[in-house]
């Protein structure tokens, strides 16, 4: 699950980035509005965490631009200006949630999960698929009530496919959800992760769509 973090403050940025990574997300960090703009035009993100006080392009402008070009990626706004008017202003410009500084890192992560869940049309955190029970927050996967150990990458591919049931995910799309900007992409990594998942969770779970990628069929 790839998240774009837009934050100009070094210390906050480093902290949020580390926190989101710890929670299992791939994080790209843009330090100003223009960099964020560029990132959003080239990459598909599951979520944007946006600080409003940005140099070069104010956060609110970025948000308006994002909505005006029809991108419906969920946006969580961070701001030190926590008055009701500020919150309302932010939400009306297209933000999905608002968090005032200083915030709690665990709350930020929980809200990110909630936004992702809603954007995927789920109401419960836990995903049930045939004999599988997958809990992205707790990072546990059960097959017939037996816990299956998964690596972080396998986990990311599984969640990406399960949250987009019936929609084939291309190799590059899956790679995007696996790696942040700084991380080296290993060749054949996706194939390796998919074959591992098939071994652990059953061969019929993930179907290969020739020339496109992989899909988990609708339950």
């Amino acid at each position: 699950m790839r998240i774009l973090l837009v934050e100009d403050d070094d210390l906050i940025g480093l902290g949020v980035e580390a926190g989101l990574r710890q929670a299992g997300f791939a994080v790209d960090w843009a330090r100003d509005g223009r960099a964020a703009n560029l990132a959003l035009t080239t990459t598909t993100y599951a979520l944007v965490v946006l600080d409003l006080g940005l140099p070069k392009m104010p956060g609110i402008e970025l948000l308006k631009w994002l909505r005006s070009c029809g991108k419906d990626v969920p946006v969580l706004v961070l701001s030190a200006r926590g008055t009701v008017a500020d919150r309302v202003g932010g939400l009306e410009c297209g933000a999905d949630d608002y968090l005032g500084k200083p915030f709690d890192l665990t709350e930020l992560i929980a809200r990110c999960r909630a936004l992702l869940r809603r954007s995927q049309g789920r109401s419960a955190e836990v995903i049930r698929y045939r004999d599988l029970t997958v809990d992205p927050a707790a990072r546990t996967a059960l097959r017939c009530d037996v816990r299956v150990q998964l690596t972080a990458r396998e986990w990311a591919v599984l969640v990406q496919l399960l949250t987009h049931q019936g929609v084939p995910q291309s190799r590059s799309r899956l790679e995007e959800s696996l790696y942040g900007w700084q991380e080296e992409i290993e060749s054949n990594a996706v194939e390796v992760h998919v074959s591992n998942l098939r071994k652990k969770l059953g061969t019929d779970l993930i179907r290969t769509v020739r020339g496109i990628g992989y899909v988990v069929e609708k339950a």
Partner: protein
Amino acid sequence: MPASIRRHLMLLVFASIALVWGIALLSSFRHATHEVEEWEDARLAEFAQTLTLLDQNDLTVLSKTHIDARDEYSRAGSNGADDDDDKLPRDMLFQVRDAHGRILASSPDLMPLGAWDPPSELPPQSQGGAHTITLGGRVAGQPAGQPPAGQPPAGQPIKQPWHTYTLYDGASGRTVRVLEPANTRSDLATGAARRISEPIAFALPILALLVWVSIGHSFRPLRLLSKVIHAREINQLEPIDMGRSPSEVRPLIDAINHLLSRLRQSIVRERTFTADAAHELKTPLAAIKVQAQVALAAQDTLQQRLAMERVVQGVDRSARLAEQLLLLARLDEHDRMPGSVLALDGLARDVIAANEEQAQRRGIGIALVGDARFEIVAEPVLVNILLDNLIDNALKYCDSGDRVEVEIRRNNVRAAQTVVLTVRDNGPGVGIEEQRRLTDRFFRGTGTSSTGSGLGLSIVARIVEYFGASLSFGAGIEGRGLAVEIAFPCSASD
């Protein structure tokens, strides 16, 4: 007792009335006295005229008669006032001489008065006329019985003014002298004065009341104004509107409104500053919290250690911010501080030395241009803060390979000498649009990832204001980067 305009006005009005009244009284009294004298003189002249025509027998008879020349007789039933000489009998005396100076007839009372002979300064042949002379005493037997109060008993000679009229009649050759005691306390004069003063005396209390009330009424706009101001809440700072107010009160209202508007602006500034300060303090706090939570959740010790180091960085940043806010608040408290003569070049060298390490670490060159000695009158601690902020700012926005120059020079602008301190760099610079906002509190240049508080140049601007110096921005070294120029007024000794 506090000073009162109303009392003061009352006093002035009444003093003026009393003065005018007194002058009117005095002049009318004098006028009336003069009239009485003229009238009595006319009577004397008339009597003298008669004497020129009387024959020897009549003159002899007349000389033995008391001629009562009182001005007024008491009316029946009314008691004459004791102080009114008009009603006292006054003997008219006369002496008639022929052309040879022989006395034809004379009132015998002239002798005891010492007025038997005409005064030497009056030549007998002269046309004569009316005079007032002082003779020693009242005619014997007059006043009979009770002498007027304040006068010595009868018989003793008393000095008293007499009116005298001398007439030389060319046809008969007679010289006639007529004398009459002057009516010094004529009721005619005092009466006229009283008639003028009495209505005013009666009118005075009414006048006082009217003046008091009208002055009070005139002060109504002032009372209304104080009521309006009194009724205001502490945060009610909109201008006072009293509709139409008198031109004397208008300046007061204008001045109060001006003060209110300045107060309003200052409060708005204060509120903005507080809000901004709170906002700015939240950012490092958020960083500290996030990093602390990362440290708590971190699995490996390296990551934990890194996060804890960042917590410390965040705390340092908050502390510096708090320090700057305190400095600004302290600067805002005072208008101006007394300074001492100090060497600006020496201070600049010290601050450059203190920042040398940071500059070297980041590969930025820093140098003082010129080596002359420049003295300014200022407060050394504040100048130090100013220099440190300017140099730190320049270093912060420069990249490796850039350089920072500090230059001090003398400048003569329109006879006024200034010492100009310039800190310039060849870093990324600041656009004209942004230059105007540089001294705004919490403003940070947009093209930067520096972690300043945005208060540095606000502090510089405030300190510059302190010393009555001026601050300007321009292009830096070789047209690149930013130059900050501060012109200090020269010390008197230069």
